[in-house]
Protein backbone atom coordinates (compact mmCIF):
# COMPACT_ATOMS: atom_id res chain seq x y z
CA UNK A 1 0.00 0.00 0.00
CA UNK A 2 2.73 2.41 1.02
CA UNK A 3 4.65 1.64 -2.16
CA UNK A 4 1.52 2.14 -4.25
CA UNK A 5 1.01 5.59 -2.78
CA UNK A 6 4.63 6.53 -3.38
CA UNK A 7 4.42 5.24 -6.96
CA UNK A 8 1.36 7.31 -7.79
CA UNK A 9 2.69 10.39 -5.98
CA UNK A 10 5.73 10.08 -8.23
CA UNK A 11 3.45 11.50 -10.94
CA UNK A 12 2.78 14.72 -9.04
CA UNK A 13 5.95 16.30 -10.42
CA UNK A 14 4.92 15.50 -14.00
CA UNK A 15 1.41 16.84 -13.45
CA UNK A 16 2.79 20.05 -11.91
CA UNK A 17 5.33 20.44 -14.69
CA UNK A 18 2.61 20.32 -17.36
CA UNK A 19 0.40 22.62 -15.32
CA UNK A 20 3.05 25.27 -14.72
CA UNK A 21 4.44 25.38 -18.26
CA UNK A 22 0.97 25.36 -19.87
CA UNK A 23 -0.11 28.04 -17.42
CA UNK A 24 2.85 30.23 -18.40
CA UNK A 25 1.98 29.82 -22.08
CA UNK A 26 -1.74 30.33 -21.50
CA UNK A 27 -1.30 33.31 -19.21
CA UNK A 28 1.21 35.20 -21.38
CA UNK A 29 -0.83 34.61 -24.52
CA UNK A 30 -3.99 35.43 -22.59
CA UNK A 31 -2.66 38.81 -21.53
CA UNK A 32 -1.12 39.64 -24.89
CA UNK A 33 -4.08 38.59 -27.02
CA UNK A 34 -6.59 39.84 -24.43
CA UNK A 35 -5.11 43.34 -24.77
CA UNK A 36 -4.96 43.00 -28.56
CA UNK A 37 -8.57 41.88 -28.67
CA UNK A 38 -9.52 44.91 -26.58
CA UNK A 39 -7.57 47.32 -28.78
CA UNK A 40 -8.57 45.79 -32.09
CA UNK A 41 -11.74 46.93 -33.82
CA UNK A 42 -12.11 43.64 -35.67
CA UNK A 43 -10.39 40.87 -33.73
CA UNK A 44 -11.49 38.18 -36.20
CA UNK A 45 -8.27 36.19 -36.01
CA UNK A 46 -8.23 36.10 -32.20
CA UNK A 47 -11.90 35.16 -32.09
CA UNK A 48 -11.26 32.39 -34.60
CA UNK A 49 -8.43 31.06 -32.44
CA UNK A 50 -10.70 31.11 -29.38
CA UNK A 51 -13.57 29.45 -31.20
CA UNK A 52 -11.36 26.60 -32.44
CA UNK A 53 -9.87 25.82 -29.04
CA UNK A 54 -13.14 26.19 -27.19
CA UNK A 55 -15.10 24.43 -29.88
CA UNK A 56 -13.23 21.14 -29.94
CA UNK A 57 -12.41 18.66 -27.15
CA UNK A 58 -9.04 19.02 -25.45
CA UNK A 59 -8.55 15.28 -25.90
CA UNK A 60 -8.80 15.80 -29.65
CA UNK A 61 -6.40 18.77 -29.53
CA UNK A 62 -3.83 16.71 -27.61
CA UNK A 63 -4.10 13.82 -30.06
CA UNK A 64 -3.89 16.25 -32.97
CA UNK A 65 -0.75 17.91 -31.57
CA UNK A 66 0.97 14.57 -30.99
CA UNK A 67 -0.17 12.43 -33.93
CA UNK A 68 -1.09 14.84 -36.75
CA UNK A 69 0.89 18.04 -36.26
CA UNK A 70 4.30 16.37 -36.79
CA UNK A 71 3.17 15.29 -40.26
CA UNK A 72 2.14 18.84 -41.09
CA UNK A 73 5.24 20.59 -39.79
CA UNK A 74 7.70 17.91 -40.81
CA UNK A 75 9.33 17.13 -37.47
CA UNK A 76 8.38 15.09 -34.44
CA UNK A 77 7.16 16.57 -31.19
CA UNK A 78 7.94 14.94 -27.87
CA UNK A 79 5.03 14.04 -25.64
CA UNK A 80 5.94 17.01 -23.47
CA UNK A 81 6.09 19.46 -26.39
CA UNK A 82 2.80 18.27 -27.86
CA UNK A 83 1.24 18.27 -24.40
CA UNK A 84 2.16 21.81 -23.38
CA UNK A 85 1.31 23.08 -26.86
CA UNK A 86 -2.24 21.76 -26.72
CA UNK A 87 -2.79 22.52 -23.04
CA UNK A 88 -1.16 25.96 -23.29
CA UNK A 89 -3.13 27.08 -26.35
CA UNK A 90 -6.34 25.64 -24.96
CA UNK A 91 -5.85 27.50 -21.71
CA UNK A 92 -4.91 30.67 -23.62
CA UNK A 93 -8.27 30.60 -25.40
CA UNK A 94 -10.08 30.81 -22.06
CA UNK A 95 -7.60 33.27 -20.52
CA UNK A 96 -7.98 35.69 -23.45
CA UNK A 97 -11.70 35.92 -22.76
CA UNK A 98 -11.13 36.39 -19.01
CA UNK A 99 -8.51 39.12 -19.48
CA UNK A 100 -10.51 40.83 -22.22
CA UNK A 101 -13.64 40.90 -20.07
CA UNK A 102 -11.55 42.24 -17.18
CA UNK A 103 -10.12 45.06 -19.29
CA UNK A 104 -13.60 45.97 -20.51
CA UNK A 105 -14.74 46.29 -16.91
CA UNK A 106 -12.13 48.97 -16.10
CA UNK A 107 -13.63 52.48 -16.36
CA UNK A 108 -12.52 54.44 -19.41
CA UNK A 109 -11.49 57.20 -17.00
CA UNK A 110 -8.60 55.09 -15.72
CA UNK A 111 -7.07 55.09 -19.20
CA UNK A 112 -7.73 58.81 -19.50
CA UNK A 113 -6.26 59.59 -16.08
CA UNK A 114 -3.10 57.77 -17.13
CA UNK A 115 -2.98 59.85 -20.31
CA UNK A 116 -3.46 63.16 -18.48
CA UNK A 117 -0.35 62.24 -16.49
CA UNK A 118 1.56 61.40 -19.69
CA UNK A 119 2.14 57.82 -18.57
CA UNK A 120 3.40 55.76 -21.51
CA UNK A 121 1.20 53.03 -22.98
CA UNK A 122 3.47 50.28 -21.72
CA UNK A 123 3.52 51.57 -18.14
CA UNK A 124 -0.20 52.27 -18.24
CA UNK A 125 -0.92 48.64 -19.08
CA UNK A 126 1.70 47.25 -16.74
CA UNK A 127 1.12 49.37 -13.65
CA UNK A 128 -2.35 50.89 -13.95
CA UNK A 129 -4.67 48.66 -15.98
CA UNK A 130 -3.41 45.07 -15.68
CA UNK A 131 -3.06 45.02 -11.87
CA UNK A 132 -6.71 46.07 -11.64
CA UNK A 133 -7.74 43.54 -14.28
CA UNK A 134 -5.95 40.67 -12.52
CA UNK A 135 -7.40 41.70 -9.20
CA UNK A 136 -10.92 41.74 -10.57
CA UNK A 137 -10.53 38.53 -12.52
CA UNK A 138 -8.70 36.54 -9.85
CA UNK A 139 -11.63 34.19 -9.13
CA UNK A 140 -12.07 33.44 -12.84
CA UNK A 141 -8.32 32.95 -13.29
CA UNK A 142 -8.21 30.61 -10.28
CA UNK A 143 -10.99 28.58 -11.89
CA UNK A 144 -9.03 28.35 -15.11
CA UNK A 145 -5.81 27.26 -13.38
CA UNK A 146 -7.63 24.58 -11.38
CA UNK A 147 -9.33 23.30 -14.53
CA UNK A 148 -5.97 23.24 -16.28
CA UNK A 149 -4.38 21.19 -13.50
CA UNK A 150 -7.10 18.57 -13.68
CA UNK A 151 -7.09 18.53 -17.48
CA UNK A 152 -3.41 17.59 -17.52
CA UNK A 153 -4.72 14.11 -16.65
CA UNK A 154 -5.56 13.80 -20.36
CA UNK A 155 -1.90 13.69 -21.36
CA UNK A 156 -1.88 10.08 -20.17
CA UNK A 157 -3.55 9.19 -23.48
CA UNK A 158 -0.50 10.28 -25.48
CA UNK A 159 1.74 8.29 -23.17
CA UNK A 160 2.85 10.55 -20.37
CA UNK A 161 3.32 8.82 -17.02
CA UNK A 162 1.53 11.28 -14.78
CA UNK A 163 -0.63 10.68 -11.69
CA UNK A 164 -3.48 9.31 -13.80
CA UNK A 165 -1.35 6.99 -15.89
CA UNK A 166 0.41 5.58 -12.83
CA UNK A 167 -2.93 4.81 -11.23
CA UNK A 168 -4.00 3.00 -14.38
CA UNK A 169 -0.77 0.96 -14.43
CA UNK A 170 -1.32 -0.15 -10.85
CA UNK A 171 -4.95 -0.95 -11.49
CA UNK A 172 -4.04 -3.14 -14.48
CA UNK A 173 -1.32 -4.84 -12.51
CA UNK A 174 -3.40 -5.59 -9.43
CA UNK A 175 -6.77 -6.09 -11.15
CA UNK A 176 -8.16 -3.59 -8.71
CA UNK A 177 -9.25 -0.07 -9.64
CA UNK A 178 -10.52 1.08 -6.26
CA UNK A 179 -7.29 1.80 -4.43
CA UNK A 180 -5.23 3.37 -7.25
CA UNK A 181 -8.07 5.61 -8.37
CA UNK A 182 -8.72 6.73 -4.80
CA UNK A 183 -5.03 7.58 -4.33
CA UNK A 184 -4.94 9.45 -7.67
CA UNK A 185 -8.18 11.25 -6.84
CA UNK A 186 -6.87 12.30 -3.47
CA UNK A 187 -3.62 13.56 -5.04
CA UNK A 188 -5.51 15.77 -7.49
CA UNK A 189 -7.84 16.91 -4.74
CA UNK A 190 -4.98 17.94 -2.48
CA UNK A 191 -3.17 19.72 -5.31
CA UNK A 192 -6.33 21.69 -6.07
CA UNK A 193 -6.77 22.54 -2.38
CA UNK A 194 -3.21 23.88 -2.27
CA UNK A 195 -3.87 25.97 -5.38
CA UNK A 196 -7.10 27.26 -3.86
CA UNK A 197 -5.23 28.21 -0.70
CA UNK A 198 -2.59 30.07 -2.71
CA UNK A 199 -5.19 31.93 -4.74
CA UNK A 200 -7.16 32.87 -1.63
CA UNK A 201 -3.98 34.16 -0.06
CA UNK A 202 -3.10 36.25 -3.11
CA UNK A 203 -6.63 37.58 -3.29
CA UNK A 204 -6.60 38.64 0.35
CA UNK A 205 -3.19 40.24 0.11
CA UNK A 206 -4.11 42.03 -3.06
CA UNK A 207 -7.59 43.14 -2.24
CA UNK A 208 -7.62 46.92 -2.19
CA UNK A 209 -11.26 48.02 -1.97
Amino acid at each position, binding site marked *: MYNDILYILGGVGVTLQYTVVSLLIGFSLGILLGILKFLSKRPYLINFFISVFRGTPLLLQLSFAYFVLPELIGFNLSVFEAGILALGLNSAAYMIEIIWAGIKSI*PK*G*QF*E*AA*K*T*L*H*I*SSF*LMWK*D*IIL*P*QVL*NRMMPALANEVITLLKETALISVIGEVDIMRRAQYLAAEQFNYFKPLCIAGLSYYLLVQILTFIFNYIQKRWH*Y*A
Partner: protein
Amino acid sequence: MLKLQNVSKHFKDQTILDNISLTIEKGSIVGLMGPSGCGKSTLLRCIQGFESYDKGSILCQEKVCLILQDFQLFPHMNVLDNITYGMRHVLKIPKKQAEMEGLSLLKELGLEDKAKVMPHTLSGGQKQRVAILRAMASKADLLLLDEPTSALDAQSIGEVVQLIKKLNAMGLTLLVVSHDESFLKMISTKIYELKKGMLLSQK
Protein backbone atom coordinates in the same frame (compact mmCIF):
# COMPACT_ATOMS: atom_id res chain seq x y z
CA MET B 1 -0.87 80.71 -21.98
CA LEU B 2 -3.61 78.74 -23.69
CA LYS B 3 -4.96 80.03 -26.97
CA LEU B 4 -7.90 78.59 -28.85
CA GLN B 5 -8.59 79.95 -32.30
CA ASN B 6 -11.82 79.29 -34.17
CA VAL B 7 -12.19 75.80 -32.80
CA SER B 8 -15.18 73.97 -34.23
CA LYS B 9 -16.39 70.46 -33.78
CA HIS B 10 -19.33 68.69 -35.37
CA PHE B 11 -20.88 65.35 -34.72
CA LYS B 12 -22.94 64.18 -37.67
CA ASP B 13 -25.14 67.24 -38.43
CA GLN B 14 -24.90 68.58 -34.89
CA THR B 15 -22.61 71.47 -34.00
CA ILE B 16 -20.93 70.83 -30.67
CA LEU B 17 -18.35 73.61 -30.67
CA ASP B 18 -18.96 76.60 -32.90
CA ASN B 19 -15.98 78.74 -33.82
CA ILE B 20 -14.58 79.13 -30.33
CA SER B 21 -11.76 81.58 -29.68
CA LEU B 22 -10.44 81.94 -26.17
CA THR B 23 -7.22 83.07 -24.55
CA ILE B 24 -6.31 82.14 -21.02
CA GLU B 25 -3.45 84.12 -19.55
CA LYS B 26 -0.97 82.51 -17.22
CA GLY B 27 -2.02 82.81 -13.60
CA SER B 28 -5.72 83.46 -14.23
CA ILE B 29 -8.81 81.52 -13.18
CA VAL B 30 -11.28 81.28 -16.01
CA GLY B 31 -14.80 79.97 -15.47
CA LEU B 32 -16.81 78.28 -18.19
CA MET B 33 -20.51 78.07 -17.58
CA GLY B 34 -23.39 76.46 -19.36
CA PRO B 35 -26.14 73.87 -19.06
CA SER B 36 -25.27 70.19 -19.36
CA GLY B 37 -24.83 69.04 -22.91
CA CYS B 38 -23.67 72.44 -24.15
CA GLY B 39 -20.18 71.20 -24.99
CA LYS B 40 -18.22 72.33 -21.92
CA SER B 41 -16.70 68.96 -21.21
CA THR B 42 -16.03 68.40 -24.89
CA LEU B 43 -14.07 71.64 -24.99
CA LEU B 44 -11.91 70.51 -22.05
CA ARG B 45 -11.40 67.12 -23.69
CA CYS B 46 -10.29 68.84 -26.90
CA ILE B 47 -7.76 70.92 -24.96
CA GLN B 48 -6.42 67.81 -23.23
CA GLY B 49 -6.21 66.05 -26.59
CA PHE B 50 -8.76 63.35 -25.84
CA GLU B 51 -11.01 64.46 -28.64
CA SER B 52 -10.36 65.80 -32.09
CA TYR B 53 -11.86 68.94 -33.54
CA ASP B 54 -12.69 69.73 -37.15
CA LYS B 55 -11.44 73.28 -37.51
CA GLY B 56 -9.25 75.83 -35.76
CA SER B 57 -6.22 75.51 -33.54
CA ILE B 58 -5.38 75.02 -29.91
CA LEU B 59 -2.05 76.42 -28.81
CA CYS B 60 -0.81 75.63 -25.37
CA GLN B 61 2.50 76.55 -23.79
CA GLU B 62 1.67 75.04 -20.43
CA LYS B 63 1.52 71.46 -19.29
CA VAL B 64 -2.18 70.71 -19.14
CA CYS B 65 -3.87 68.24 -16.85
CA LEU B 66 -7.58 67.52 -16.92
CA ILE B 67 -9.05 66.60 -13.55
CA LEU B 68 -11.80 64.19 -14.49
CA GLN B 69 -15.23 64.64 -12.99
CA ASP B 70 -15.02 61.39 -11.02
CA PHE B 71 -11.32 61.94 -10.22
CA GLN B 72 -10.24 58.45 -11.31
CA LEU B 73 -7.59 57.92 -8.69
CA PHE B 74 -5.79 54.62 -9.22
CA PRO B 75 -7.71 52.36 -6.81
CA HIS B 76 -4.93 49.82 -6.32
CA MET B 77 -2.35 52.37 -5.14
CA ASN B 78 -2.33 54.29 -1.89
CA VAL B 79 -2.66 58.06 -1.90
CA LEU B 80 1.08 58.77 -1.87
CA ASP B 81 1.73 56.29 -4.71
CA ASN B 82 -1.08 57.89 -6.71
CA ILE B 83 0.69 61.22 -6.37
CA THR B 84 4.26 60.02 -6.88
CA TYR B 85 3.70 57.51 -9.71
CA GLY B 86 3.95 60.17 -12.42
CA MET B 87 6.94 61.83 -10.75
CA ARG B 88 8.84 58.59 -10.54
CA HIS B 89 7.96 56.95 -13.84
CA VAL B 90 7.32 59.88 -16.15
CA LEU B 91 9.53 62.61 -14.73
CA LYS B 92 12.10 60.03 -13.51
CA ILE B 93 12.50 61.60 -10.09
CA PRO B 94 14.16 59.19 -7.61
CA LYS B 95 11.75 57.44 -5.25
CA LYS B 96 12.89 59.12 -2.04
CA GLN B 97 12.79 62.61 -3.46
CA ALA B 98 9.40 61.98 -5.10
CA GLU B 99 7.97 60.77 -1.82
CA MET B 100 9.32 63.79 0.03
CA GLU B 101 7.79 66.14 -2.52
CA GLY B 102 4.56 64.16 -2.47
CA LEU B 103 4.33 64.36 1.31
CA SER B 104 4.94 68.08 1.34
CA LEU B 105 2.20 68.53 -1.29
CA LEU B 106 -0.17 66.46 0.85
CA LYS B 107 0.73 68.60 3.84
CA GLU B 108 0.01 71.73 1.85
CA LEU B 109 -3.60 70.60 1.35
CA GLY B 110 -4.00 69.12 4.83
CA LEU B 111 -3.90 65.48 3.79
CA GLU B 112 -0.60 64.38 5.32
CA ASP B 113 -2.33 61.73 7.46
CA LYS B 114 -3.85 60.16 4.33
CA ALA B 115 -0.56 59.33 2.60
CA LYS B 116 -0.76 55.58 3.18
CA VAL B 117 -4.51 55.00 2.89
CA MET B 118 -6.27 53.57 -0.15
CA PRO B 119 -8.38 55.94 -2.27
CA HIS B 120 -11.72 54.22 -1.59
CA THR B 121 -11.53 55.29 2.06
CA LEU B 122 -11.43 59.00 1.14
CA SER B 123 -14.40 61.35 0.99
CA GLY B 124 -15.34 63.01 -2.28
CA GLY B 125 -13.57 66.24 -1.37
CA GLN B 126 -10.42 64.40 -0.32
CA LYS B 127 -10.38 62.38 -3.54
CA GLN B 128 -10.62 65.61 -5.48
CA ARG B 129 -7.69 67.13 -3.62
CA VAL B 130 -5.62 64.02 -4.23
CA ALA B 131 -6.50 64.13 -7.93
CA ILE B 132 -5.39 67.77 -8.03
CA LEU B 133 -2.16 66.96 -6.18
CA ARG B 134 -1.52 64.11 -8.60
CA ALA B 135 -1.80 66.60 -11.45
CA MET B 136 0.45 69.12 -9.70
CA ALA B 137 3.00 66.45 -8.92
CA SER B 138 3.22 65.70 -12.64
CA LYS B 139 4.28 69.37 -12.98
CA ALA B 140 1.10 70.45 -14.72
CA ASP B 141 0.64 74.21 -14.58
CA LEU B 142 -2.72 74.51 -16.27
CA LEU B 143 -5.47 72.56 -14.57
CA LEU B 144 -8.74 71.86 -16.32
CA LEU B 145 -11.44 71.18 -13.73
CA ASP B 146 -14.58 69.48 -15.00
CA GLU B 147 -17.53 70.21 -12.70
CA PRO B 148 -15.42 70.24 -9.53
CA THR B 149 -18.46 70.74 -7.30
CA SER B 150 -20.76 68.13 -8.82
CA ALA B 151 -19.80 65.33 -6.45
CA LEU B 152 -19.71 67.46 -3.32
CA ASP B 153 -22.13 68.77 -0.68
CA ALA B 154 -22.67 72.46 0.08
CA GLN B 155 -20.04 72.62 2.80
CA SER B 156 -17.38 71.07 0.61
CA ILE B 157 -18.12 73.59 -2.11
CA GLY B 158 -16.82 76.31 0.21
CA GLU B 159 -13.67 74.24 0.63
CA VAL B 160 -13.27 73.91 -3.13
CA VAL B 161 -13.44 77.70 -3.46
CA GLN B 162 -10.62 78.03 -0.91
CA LEU B 163 -8.71 75.25 -2.62
CA ILE B 164 -8.92 76.80 -6.06
CA LYS B 165 -7.78 80.18 -4.75
CA LYS B 166 -4.91 78.49 -2.97
CA LEU B 167 -3.85 76.60 -6.12
CA ASN B 168 -3.93 79.87 -8.01
CA ALA B 169 -1.80 81.51 -5.34
CA MET B 170 0.66 78.63 -5.78
CA GLY B 171 1.06 79.69 -9.41
CA LEU B 172 -1.40 77.45 -11.23
CA THR B 173 -3.64 78.58 -14.05
CA LEU B 174 -7.13 77.13 -13.93
CA LEU B 175 -9.96 76.62 -16.37
CA VAL B 176 -13.02 75.60 -14.40
CA VAL B 177 -16.16 74.22 -15.99
CA SER B 178 -19.40 74.32 -14.02
CA HIS B 179 -23.12 74.82 -14.41
CA ASP B 180 -23.13 76.70 -11.07
CA GLU B 181 -22.87 80.43 -11.78
CA SER B 182 -22.54 81.56 -8.16
CA PHE B 183 -19.66 79.15 -7.62
CA LEU B 184 -17.84 80.42 -10.69
CA LYS B 185 -18.40 84.04 -9.60
CA MET B 186 -16.62 83.30 -6.33
CA ILE B 187 -13.45 82.07 -8.00
CA SER B 188 -13.06 83.33 -11.54
CA THR B 189 -11.17 86.30 -12.90
CA LYS B 190 -13.26 85.91 -16.05
CA ILE B 191 -16.38 83.92 -16.85
CA TYR B 192 -17.52 82.71 -20.24
CA GLU B 193 -20.80 81.12 -21.08
CA LEU B 194 -21.12 78.32 -23.57
CA LYS B 195 -24.49 78.20 -25.29
CA LYS B 196 -25.29 75.74 -28.05
CA GLY B 197 -21.59 75.48 -28.82
CA MET B 198 -21.04 79.24 -28.99
CA LEU B 199 -18.87 81.10 -26.52
CA LEU B 200 -20.30 84.24 -24.95
CA SER B 201 -18.26 86.51 -22.71
CA GLN B 202 -19.89 87.30 -19.38
CA LYS B 203 -17.61 89.66 -17.56
